[in-house]
C-alpha cells in the first residue's frame, strides 16, 4: 500500500492511529517529550532510535501497558488514551516473546481468543490457519522451551496476529536472532505485512531493519521524533547530523553560508538551495561522492587516498584532506597514495536544516 505523506492528518485520524502531544516522565526523566505521530491504516511504521530514546515507551503507551502523562492517543477515531491494554484492539510481539512456558504452542496462540470467549470451533479454525501460515503446524503440541529462537518469534507473531488486531506492535522482535536469520525474518515480516494489509508498528535500533520493512520511519532521539518520512526521504534528506549518521554513513562538513553556497574546510562548495542558517553543516553520503582523474566543473576536491577497506559490495576509501569517506564499487580499486579528484556535486550535498552551530 502506497502511503501519501501529504494526506490531511484529520482525515487520517479517523482510521489510523493518531498520537497527539504525548509526553511521559519517569521520575525526573522526560522519556517522551511532546510526540505527535500519525500512522495510517495498513501502514508498516517504524520507530527507529538508539536505546533510551523513548521508542519502547511510546510503543507501550500505544499498547496500553503504560499511560501517557499528557497528550492523547486515538485509534480509528476513538480516543483510547486511558483504556487499559485488555480493552484495546492492539496486540504486541514482545522482545523476549513472553510465551507462556506451561502452555503448548497451540494453547499459546489460542490464548487471546479463549480469553475473549470465542466458540471452540472458531478458535480451532483460526489458530490452525495462523500456525499453517507461519509454518508452525508441526510444532502445535510442543512447548516453548522445545523451540528455536526463530520458531519462538513466529509463535509470538502468530499469537498476536490470530486476534486480528487493528494495530500490531513489534518490540525489537529480531534482537534475539542471529544476523543471518534476522535478514530473512525482515523479508518475511515485510511480505507478511503487505499480504495481510494490517497496520504494523515496529520498534528497532537497527536501521537496516527499518529500511527493509517500513513504509515510513520515525527517527527518535531523547524522547522526540526528529524526523519522519519514507526510508528514501529520511535517507536522502536527513534534517540533522544525528539522522544523517543514524541511517547509513555520512560525511559531515561544518559550513558557513556565503553567496551561492557555503565556505568549508575544503573551500567553497556550491549548493542547490540556500541553507536556512548562517553557520551549520552539510552532509554527503560516501557513495554519492564522484571520483575521477579530471577536475570536475564545480565542487572539485583534490585528495589523496590514505586507506582502502574492502567491504564486499564496495570499497571504502578514506581520503585526505578529510576525514572523508568515499565509497566506490568493488571493481574500482584505488591504491593508497594515489591522488584523485573528488566531486561533491551540488545536487548530492544535503543541507542539514536543523543543524545550526
Amino acid at each position, binding site marked *: 500500500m502506497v502511503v501519501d505523506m501529504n494526506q490531511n492528518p484529520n482525515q487520517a485520524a479517523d482510521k489510523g492511529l493518531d498520537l497527539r502531544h504525548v509526553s511521559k516522565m519517569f521520575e525526573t526523566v522526560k522519556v517522551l517529550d511532546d510526540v505527535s505521530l500519525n500512522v495510517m491504516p495498513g501502514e508498516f511504521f517504524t520507530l527507529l532510535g538508539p536505546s533510551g530514546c523513548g521508542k519502547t515507551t511510546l510503543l507501550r503507551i500505544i499498547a496500553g501497558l503504560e499511560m501517557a502523562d499528557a497528550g492523547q492517543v486515538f485509534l480509528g477515531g476513538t480516543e483510547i488514551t486511558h483504556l487499559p491494554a485488555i480493552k484495546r484492539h492492539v496486540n504486541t510481539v514482545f522482545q523476549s516473546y513472553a510465551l*507462556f512456558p506451561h502452555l503448548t504452542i497451540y494453547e499459546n496462540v489460542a*490464548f487471546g481468543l479463549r480469553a475473549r470467549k470465542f466458540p471452540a470451533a472458531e478458535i480451532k479454525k483460526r489458530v490452525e490457519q495462523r500456525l499453517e501460515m507461519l509454518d508452525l503446524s508441526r510444532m502445535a503440541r510442543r512447548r516453548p*522451551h522445545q523451540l528455536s529462537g526463530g520458531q519462538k518469534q513466529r509463535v509470538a507473531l502468530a499469537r498476536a496476529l490470530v486476534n486480528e488486531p487493528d494495530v500490531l506492535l513489534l518490540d525489537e522482535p529480531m534482537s534475539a536472532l542471529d544476523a543471518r536469520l534476522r535478514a530473512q525474518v525482515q523479508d518475511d515480516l515485510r511480505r507478511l505485512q503487505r499480504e495481510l494489509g494490517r497496520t504494523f508498528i515496529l520498534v528497532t535500533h537497527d536501521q537496516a531493519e527499518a529500511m527493509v520493512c517500513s513504509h515510513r520511519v520515525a527517527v527518535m532521539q531523547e524522547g522526540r521524533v526528529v524526523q519522519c518520512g519514507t526510508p528514501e526521504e529520511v535517507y536522502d534528506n536527513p534534517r540533522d547530523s544525528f539522522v544523517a549518521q543514524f541511517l547509513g554513513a555520512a560525511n559531515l562538513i561544518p559550513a558557513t553560508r556565503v553567496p551561492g553556497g557555503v565556505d568549508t574546510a575544503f573551500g567553497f562548495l556550491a549548493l542547490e538551495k540556500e541553507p536556512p542558517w548562517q553557520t551549520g553543516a552539510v552532509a554527503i553520503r560516501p557513495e554519492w561522492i564522484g571520483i575521477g582523474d579530471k577536475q570536475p566543473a564545480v565542487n572539485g576536491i583534490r585528495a589523496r587516498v590514505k586507506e582502502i577497506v574492502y567491504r564486499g559490495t564496495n570499497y571504502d576509501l578514506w581520503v585526505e584532506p578529510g576525514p572523508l569517506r568515499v565509497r566506490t564499487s568493488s571493481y574500482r580499486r584505488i591504491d593508497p597514495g594515489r591522488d584523485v579528484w573528488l566531486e561533491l556535486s551540488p545536487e548530492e550535498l544535503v543541507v542539514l536544516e536543523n543543524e545550526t552551530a
Partner: protein
Amino acid sequence: MKTKPPDSILIWFGELTTRRHLLKRGMLLLMPGMLWLMLFLVLPGLVLVLVSVITRGAYGQLEWVLTLENYRRLAGFSLFGWTADYLMILWRSAVVAFVTTLVSVLLSYPLCFFIAGRPQRTRYLWLTLVIIPFWTNMVIRTYAWFLILSPQMPIARLAAYLGIIAQGAPLYPNAFAVYLGMVSIFLPFVTLPLYASVERLDWSLVEAAKDLYASPVSVFTQAILPQTMPGLSVGIILTFVPAMGVFVVPDLLGGAKYMLVGNLIQQQFGPSRDWPFGAAISMGLMVLTLLGIMVYRRRGKDLETV
C-alpha cells in the same frame, strides 16, 4: 580371558581423573550426610515403628509384647465399643493445617508483591520485619496473642460491642484464636520462599496476558501462578507438614476442647505415659501428612512448568 575395559580419563573441574576415582570420592563425600540421615531420621523412625507395636505396662513402662492394640485404639476400638474421637482429632488437625496453609498463601501473595514492589533499599527492611517474629519463641508469640485478644483490648471490645462475644470476655479459647495463632506463626514459611519466586517474576508474561485480553483472574492463573509455583510448593510443604503436628498453639489458644493430634501425642508421651499409643498416633500423623503431600503433588503437577 576377558580384560576389564580401561576406565576412561576425563577432566572434572580442571582436574584430570577417572570415573571410578570420582565415584569413590563421591561416596566418601556422601558419607557424613548419609550418617546424619541414618542417625536422626531413619533410626528414630524405626524406633517409633517398633514402639508403636509393643505394649504399655501397668506403670507406663514398655513391655516387649508385640501387639496391634495401639492401632486398634487409634482407629477408635476400645473396651466400650467404637468411637470416632481419635480419627476426628486427626481429621480436625488436617483441616486446621489445610486452612492455615491456605490462609497463609492467600496473605503471602499480596505481601510478597508489596515487598517486591518497594525500592531496592527498603525491600530488605520489609523482609526483616517478616523474619523478626521468626526469632521469637513460639510460646512467647502465642502468649502475645492472649494479650492482644484479652477483654481490655480493642479487638475483644469491638467483638463484644457487635454481640459476637459476651461483655468483658476474651476472644479465646476458640477456633478463631487458634487460626490466628497458627497463621501468624506459619506466614513467614510461605512468604519467604514465595518472595524468592515473586522477586524473579518475568513481568513480560503478565503484560502478554493483559495484552491478550486476559481477565485479572486468568492473569494470575496463567502468568503469575505457574511462575511462582516453585516457591509456593516449598512454602506449602513447609507450612502444612509442621502445622499438622503443632501442639503449643491449640493447647494455649484453643483450650482443652480444641484438641489437635499434636496435643494428643504430647499427652501420650507426657502425662499419660503411654508411649506405644503415642507412637501409633505419630505413625498415623505421618501417614496422613504423606498422603496430603501426595495429593498436593498429584494436583500440582498440572500447574508446574516443565
